[in-house]
């Protein structure tokens, strides 16, 4: 798991992961690259991350992937990420394509639902919590 201040160097990350698994004999490598879209006059999105819980979430995913003979990777930005740059790269490596195609879908969807990351629109230099696009994590409402 890799966290960066500001936008990700997507080519460096993609290429380094490719090189690091070059001799691992995986037949399928599927990255997912998330890029900030220009919409509703935002200048950037901005992210807060709670790293200890994110690390546990990721470690559990590593175990799940390992049980299926695969490997998962992820990189995410902290702070401001301007429009048309990337905030998120995740990837699956596996021997065969079916497992890779299924895992990347499950991994990205669970990431959206349960990774402890908070998103803000940046407009006129102001940070506004993206509440309408956010999802309560599993187990929410416990203290209500």
């Amino acid at each position, binding site marked *: 798991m890799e966290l960066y201040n500001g936008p990700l160097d997507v080519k460096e990350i993609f290429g380094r992961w490719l090189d690091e698994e070059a001799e691992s004999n995986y037949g399928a490598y599927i990255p997912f690259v998330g890029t900030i879209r220009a919409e509703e006059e935002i200048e950037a999105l901005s992210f807060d991350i709670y790293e200890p819980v994110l690390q546990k979430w990721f470690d559990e995913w590593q175990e799940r992937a390992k049980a299926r003979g695969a490997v998962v990777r992820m990189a995410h930005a902290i702070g401001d990420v301007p429009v048309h740059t990337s905030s998120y790269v995740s990837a699956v490596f596996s021997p065969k394509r079916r497992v890779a195609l299924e895992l990347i879908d499950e991994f990205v969807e669970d990431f959206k639902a349960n990774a402890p990351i908070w998103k803000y629109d940046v407009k006129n230099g102001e940070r506004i919590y993206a509440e309408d696009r956010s999802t309560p994590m599993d187990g929410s409402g416990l*203290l209500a």
Partner: protein
Amino acid sequence: MIKVEFLGPIGKAAVEMEAATLADVAAKLKEDEMLVPWLEKCAVALNDTMVKDLDTVLNDGDRISILPPVCGG
């Protein structure tokens, strides 16, 4: 004494309190009207492990994190 931290957009400083279980924490946090709407949609971690049971017993020095709705990526 345990410590309660409010993550991401909640924008509230950490508080310390006496609490034997998570139910005690819930009762005390609900005294703050500003927190009530957050509590309905927040998940909870105890010492960085997600918890789902109000009867969870707390020990001196424990750290509770309140996690509002997320949107990574």
